[in-house]
């Protein structure tokens, strides 16, 4: 028995001369919420396919609950619920029929939990899948994934195209499940609103490489946006690292990735330059600063 829900070791996926996933290693502890961020084309989809045992890695591999997912896919997928960005079903099929279908596939199916959620979302079991809104389809898809009583839920860009209300409802369900059953969550997204307070670890995938893999609290505590009214400034004098520096006529703005008050005070004393503003950053802003302007895709 391992404490890890997911263990990815040196995962590499190539398409011809293109490397989509480049030697990625990361772990997700049981009960943890891991958010993998990356812009389109960063390699998220390839990584997810390997994670779900749908694609064989060119090198390295993925273990779920200690077992190799490529070798033990069928058994492991009984324990993994998936909500993908293009969750789909035949439009003529009713929600109830969908549930009956899934019930046959999953040994730990919880019909009562499914029906309670549908009632809560205001979706009837007789409703045809094709007549549902985008948000409702996502809700059905989540309810199906949770009804199989998973130990791990994989949310692949779950909020794509959802409005704020639908997004909130979706995450509330996941949080409830976290509290009740202690499941682990792996979510990929390029839209952090809604997830940034409940992800406890964050990874950033950029051109196939995991350029960041860190505790969310630690990340928030070390990044700052500093605005100066004078320029140019040498932040290195305080031992501060500027990941990005922008200057304009009368001032400059720096994103500092290792901020602390003492280092900044040292810089200030040495340079005599005062900052106009020092702002903490949301994970969303940190993601933009890291995966930034020249593109996380290819």
């Amino acid at each position, binding site marked *: 028995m391992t404490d890890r829900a997911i263990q990815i070791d040196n995962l590499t996926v190539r398409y011809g001369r293109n490397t989509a996933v480049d030697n990625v290693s990361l772990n997700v502890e049981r*009960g*943890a919420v891991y958010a993998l961020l990356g812009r389109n084309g960063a390699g998220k989809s390839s990584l997810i396919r390997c994670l779900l045992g749908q694609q064989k890695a060119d090198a390295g591999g993925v273990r779920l609950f200690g077992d190799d997912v490529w070798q033990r896919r069928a058994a492991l997928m009984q324990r993994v619920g998936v909500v993908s960005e293009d969750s789909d079903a035949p439009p003529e099929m009713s929600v109830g029929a969908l549930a009956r279908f899934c019930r046959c596939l999953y040994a730990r199916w919880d019909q009562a939990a499914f029906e309670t959620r549908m009632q809560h979302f205001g979706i009837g079991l007789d409703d045809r899948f094709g007549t549902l809104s985008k948000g409702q389809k996502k809700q059905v898809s989540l309810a199906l994934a949770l009804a199989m009583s998973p130990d791990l839920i994989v949310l692949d860009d779950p909020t794509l195209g959802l409005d704020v209300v639908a997004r909130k409802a979706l995450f509330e369900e996941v*949080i409830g499940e976290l509290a009740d059953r202690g499941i682990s969550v792996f979510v990929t997204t390029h839209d952090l609103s809604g997830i940034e307070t409940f992800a406890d670890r964050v990874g950033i995938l950029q051109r196939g490489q995991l350029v960041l893999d860190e505790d969310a609290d630690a990340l*928030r*505590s070390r990044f700052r946006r500093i605005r100066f009214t004078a320029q140019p400034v040498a932040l290195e004098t305080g031992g501060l690292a500027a990941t990005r520096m922008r200057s304009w006529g009368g001032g400059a703005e720096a994103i500092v990735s290792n901020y602390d*008050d003492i280092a*900044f*005070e040292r810089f200030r004393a040495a340079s005599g330059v005062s900052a106009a503003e020092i702002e903490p950053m949301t994970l969303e802003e940190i993601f933009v600063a890291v995966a930034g302007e020249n593109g996380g895709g290819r």
Partner: protein
Amino acid sequence: MFAINPADPAPIWRQIEEGVRRLIALGALSPGAAVPSMRDLARDLRVNPNTVARAYTRLIEGGVLTVKRGEGTYVADTPVQPKKSERHEVLRDGANRYASTAIAVGADLDDAVDELQTAFERIVREHRRRA
């Protein structure tokens, strides 16, 4: 109850811990009052239940909250206020942080004290209005 600020550099468990302590200190939560279950608070604040659990554990160990088995979590009948020395330490910590931010942006002492006073009064006022 209170909100989590995703841009606050303080860890979320600490924001929760301080939020609960503040509600008690301001009288919004009375001794013996029930506090939300970890599940409800997690959903409400949209944070990981483990994060709420961490904050609650610290509050329980600190004598601020008590658990009644099978019932739930409550504000202690006589919630333990931080000891004078502890309070001092917390204040000094916060003051150091605030002072260095103020100096960094080139504020003088009067400006800094004014801002502090305004913030203090605003927080107390907002709680009164909500209560």
